[in-house]
Each structure stands twice: as C-alpha cells, then as structure tokens.
C-alpha cells in the first residue's frame, strides 16, 4: 500500500506531526507567522476529543498548556518572536518543575515587533538563554516541511523522555513554504509514552531520583496527590532552600539533558567525508548551503555541510572533531552571528570561522555562500 501524501505548508505539517505524536491539548495566542498551527489545531483537536483554547496572551497560553500537561495531556503551544519573549518566565518554570510540553516558535525578524512576515533565525539564543537561571534547553531547527512534521514528533518524544520543554523553531521560510509530505503509517514512528509512577500514591514523590535522572510524573486526577512549585524544590516537590538539595536538583535538571546530548543531537553530514570547507547551517539557510556545496564541487572545491537538526544541545564535540582536517568553517545565518559564536567555541581557534549574516528580511542565497567558500584558503 502506498503511503498518504500531501502538499503542505510547514506550519500545517507541524500541526499534523504534533497530532501523530499524540498531542491532545493546544493553547496559544495568534501571531504571524505561526498562526496556521493554531488554526489547524482548532479544527483537528475537537474531532479526536482533544482540547483547543485560545488564551488571552502568550503567557496565559503557556500556563494553560502546562496546567493541562500536569493533568496528563500532551500539550503544544505555538508562537513567534515577541510571544517567545513573553513566555520566558514560564519556560523556566517548565524546566524547574519538569513539565513536558512542546513550544513551536517560528522565527521572524526581531527584536520586538521587528519584521512580522520576514524570515529570521535570531531566536536561537533566546531558546537557550531567554529564561533566567540555569536550566536545560532542547531546540530543534527543521529545514524542510517533511522534517518539520518529523521533528514535531521527535520533540514530543524528547519532552516526555526527558520531562522538559522542547522548542521546535523553523524560520519563517520553512514555516510558510509548501512541499510534499509523506505521512508515516500509524505505528511506524515510535511514540514515547509519559513515564508514570509505578509506586502507589502514598509513596510517590514527583522528583524521586531513585528512578534515575528523569523521575516519573503522575497526572492530576489519577489518585496521586502531589505538589508542583516554581520554587527550588526537593525530591518531594516541596519548596526548599536547603543548600545541598537545591544544588543537587539544579545539577540534575541540566544533567538529564546534557549527559544525553548524543541521544538528542541529530545532524546531517552532506559531502563531509573529504570536505576542506565546512558550512554549518540550519533551517532554510541550509537549503542555500546545499546548493552552494554542489556548485563548489562542480568547480573542484571540496566543500561540505554540517547541517544542524538539533540546535540545543549544540554539537560542539562533532564540530571540534572536524577541526583537525579542514581549512575552515562558514556560518551563514539570518542573524548577526548566533550559531557563529557557538561554532567558534567548537573551533577552539584551530581553524577560522567565517560568517555570512543577514538581518534584512531576505534569505541568504547560494551565491553569497559560494563566494565565501572561494575565500577560504
């Protein structure tokens, strides 16, 4: 039997990917260029008995999503730049209270209202450093419509597996372009279930590390009476200022993601085997980079691309490993050097890192990248 195929927009694909992953609750606030997600979810969720709510602002949307997540639902919230800024306090709470949820953020020009319909990749640092305090960050950056569909499924899976919020952040071009999507069959892609307690309610502690770095999470209304707070907490979930408990919990929250970076980080190596010039790209920019690599190869230049699918945790180790055999990195991106800085960290001064930065609302075209490739000596 042939698989179901559709011609979809990135935002639509994201919505269907979420539904495949078992999303049954959506809360959001409309904002260009992500609104189509809210629209699709408002159509689809009630059909399967799921819940859709348009809240009064982006903070409320994240709050409602997190409330539903604690009631056992798989939840999604979608937004763009200004909304992502508003959500930061609650993203921090989702991290510290360890509430699984997915936030879909389409990157548009910023800061502030910026360029609502212009593409950008300038939220990638906000995804990691936007909320205050030490916390884990998982951020996925798809570059095709098909990948947006699949990365939404992976995002839900990672949020459940690591009990933490996951951001999926296509740029506006990926979110609004239309491409062919081949749908997986039901059951074809494994869905990570929520890990719920095996102990009876009297023994349950929401942050019980005897079950590992990612403790099981009960749902409200299932017989388990437990406390969730935004304060630093002990394993029992109650606020504490006890130095050793706070230190241990903070470290575990970050460690559960960082120590599993190899499981979370995905990337594509394109023409990398013998590459001397390596482009590190993500999102729509990687599409121009792919074209530029092919052109360079035709002209006898050994170019390749390391394409990020996971932005956070960042693949420092993988990039550092390349420094022994390449002449340099090129980082094209629609911001003033965000990925660039991380690649510099990975390069450790061993090879040059050359940036191509655009924040004028125009995509980076292949010629720009090709010209830069030729500059690498």
């Amino acid at each position, binding site marked *: 039997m042939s698989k179901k195929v559709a011609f979809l927009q990135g935002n639509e694909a994201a919505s269907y990917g979420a539904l495949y992953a078992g999303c049954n*609750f959506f*809360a959001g606030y409309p904002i260009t260029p992500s609104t189509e997600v809210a629209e699709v979810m408002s*159509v689809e969720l*009630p*059909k399967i*008995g799921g*819940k859709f*709510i348009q*809240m*009064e*602002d982006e*903070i*409320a*949307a994240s*709050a*409602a*999503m*997190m*409330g*539903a*997540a*604690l*009631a*056992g*639902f798989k*939840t999604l919230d979608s937004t763009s730049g200004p909304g992502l800024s508003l959500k930061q*306090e*609650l993203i921090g*709470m989702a991290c510290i209270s360890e509430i699984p949820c997915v936030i879909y953020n389409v990157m548009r020009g910023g800061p502030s209202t910026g360029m609502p319909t212009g593409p950008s990749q300038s939220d990638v640092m906000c995804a990691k450093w936007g909320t205050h305090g030490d916390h884990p960050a998982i951020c996925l950056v798809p570059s095709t419509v098909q990948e947006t569909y699949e990365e939404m499924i992976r995002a839900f899976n990672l949020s459940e597996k690591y009990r933490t919020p996951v951001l999926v952040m296509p740029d506006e071009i990926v979110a609004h372009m239309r491409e062919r999507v081949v749908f997986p069959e039901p059951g074809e892609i494994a869905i990570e279930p929520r890990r719920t307690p095996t102990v009876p*309610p009297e023994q349950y502690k929401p942050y019980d590390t005897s079950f590992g770095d990612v403790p099981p999470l009960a749902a*409200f*209304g*299932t*017989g*388990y*009476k*437990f*406390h*969730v*707070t*935004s*304060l630093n907490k002990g394993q029992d979930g*109650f*606020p504490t200022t006890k130095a050793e408990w706070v230190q241990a919990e903070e470290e575990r929250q970050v460690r559960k993601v960082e120590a599993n970076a190899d499981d979370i980080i995905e990337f594509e190596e394109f023409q990398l085997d013998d590459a001397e010039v390596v482009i590190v790209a993500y999102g729509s920019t990687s599409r121009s980079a792919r074209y530029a690599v092919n052109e360079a190869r035709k002209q006898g230049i050994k170019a390749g691309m390391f394409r990020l699918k996971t932005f956070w945790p960042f693949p420092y180790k993988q990039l550092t490993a390349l420094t022994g055999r390449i002449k340099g990195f090129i980082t094209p991106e629609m911001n003033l050097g965000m990925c660039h800085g991380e690649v510099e960290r990975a390069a450790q001064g061993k090879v040059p890192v050359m940036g191509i930065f655009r924040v004028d609302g125009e995509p980076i075209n292949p010629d720009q990248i090709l010209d830069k490739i030729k500059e690498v000596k």
Partner: protein
Amino acid sequence: MAFDYEKYIRPGKLPHIWCPGCGHGIVMKGLIRAMDSLKLDMAQTAIVSGIGCASRLPGYMDCCTLHTAHGRAAAFATGVKLAKPEMNVILVGGDGDGTAIGGNHFIHACRRNIDMTYIILNNKIYGMTGGQFSPTTPTGAKASTTPYGNPDPCFDIAKLAIGAGATFVARGTSFHANQIDKLIAEAIQHKGFSVVEIMDDCPTTYGRRNKFKSVIEMMNHLKEIAVPVKAAEKMTAEQLQGKVLTGVLYKDETKTEYTAEYAKVIERAKAAK
C-alpha cells in the same frame, strides 16, 4: 467533637510560613471546612495559586496542588480544568497576584465562566515582598512604596469580577470566620466561575504602617466596615460610606459554563468529520 483540620493538611507541612496575626490561615481553615462540608474527593481536587504569602496556601493542602508563577494561577487552572472538567479546581491568591500582574488572566477567566472557584485573599498589600501598595491599597494609605500616601485609586474586586462576567461573586472577611466556609462552599457548588473575596489583614506590612496598633484593632476594623448585603438594602448611601458589602453579591445561573460549551464544540467537530 472539635473539627479535625489535620486530615486535609499534608503530614509534616506545618508550621506554615505566615506571621502571627496574618489573616491567611483563617481563610485556609474556612476552605478546609467548606471542602469537608461538600465531601470533596481530595484526589480529584486541584488547588492552584500564583506567588505571594496567600499563594503558599496550596502547599499545605493534601490534594493536587500547583504553585505557579506570580499572577498566572488562573491561566494554569484553566488548562487543568479544560483538560479534566471532572476535577474540582480551586484557585487561591493575593490581591496583588490576582488583580495586578494576574489581572488579565483574572478577567478572562471571569469572561469564560469556566467552572472554578477563585478565593482572593485581599489584605490590600503586597505582603510577601514587604508591603508595597497593590491595586486594592486604599488611596492615601501608606505602603513601602507610597511613603507620602497612596495616590492610586483602587479596584473593587467584586465589581471587577461581575463586570468581567463571573457568575458567582461573594465577599467575606477574616473577622467573620464562620461565614467563610459557607461562602466558599456555595461558590464551589456553583457551576461557573465563582469569585470569593476575603478581606483579610497583613499586620506585618500594612498594619504597622497604617497606625493599627494591634491585630485586634485590624480585626475590629474589618468588623466595623463589613455590612451584609441584606442589611445594606435598608441603609442610605451616607450610611454606607466606607463600608464593604459582604455575603453573596451576585449570582447568575443562566450563562453557559465553558467546559460544557467546549463539550458542544467537540460534538459539532465530530459530527462534521
């Protein structure tokens, strides 16, 4: 036999953090008596709060409890209730939490008429942070940030709730402790968004700055200003100067409740499939 509060309180969680003379504990006891009178299943009850002294209340209660970010309780609770309409959802918080930073979520919860009960512990001040003025601090009063007297007019929480679409609105005081449980119980039983404002006191940060010599004086003040709605009907506007009405101030049983309305959305969507 004396009422057994302890069966509703989490073992080992007392003593609470509240100062001696703080009104918040009186409200918590009222809430417990209300829950007891309704025989609420604690495992099917969620208490959600924001941040502040009042918002520490859920941590002591032996049910599903969620202590969120400052001002956001109503939005979190909306998520819990929409996800699981069969649960009892109760919100607790202070005047600052609910009507300043959380004011937007408060009015929209009222507008949706979602079946939850919001207990606002109105001590007219930001207690937890040391006594800055709140949207309910009386004009002219002293707070740590109004050293020359408060220039701001204040909210009437009950009128705000009614105007925004809440369908049950009541007010009590921490002096009238025996009335608190009855108001809360009636609010919980009401199908729709119910608001119970309890006027209470923060002797630590409000009382001492505003010439209340003792907690008893603050309690007496609550006693003096409270006028039951029935009694108020027979009083002149002049006699009602400086008074606050107590009891059930508003009740509307005609407006549809949000989760019931959403159930209809699901029905329509399934029919259209």
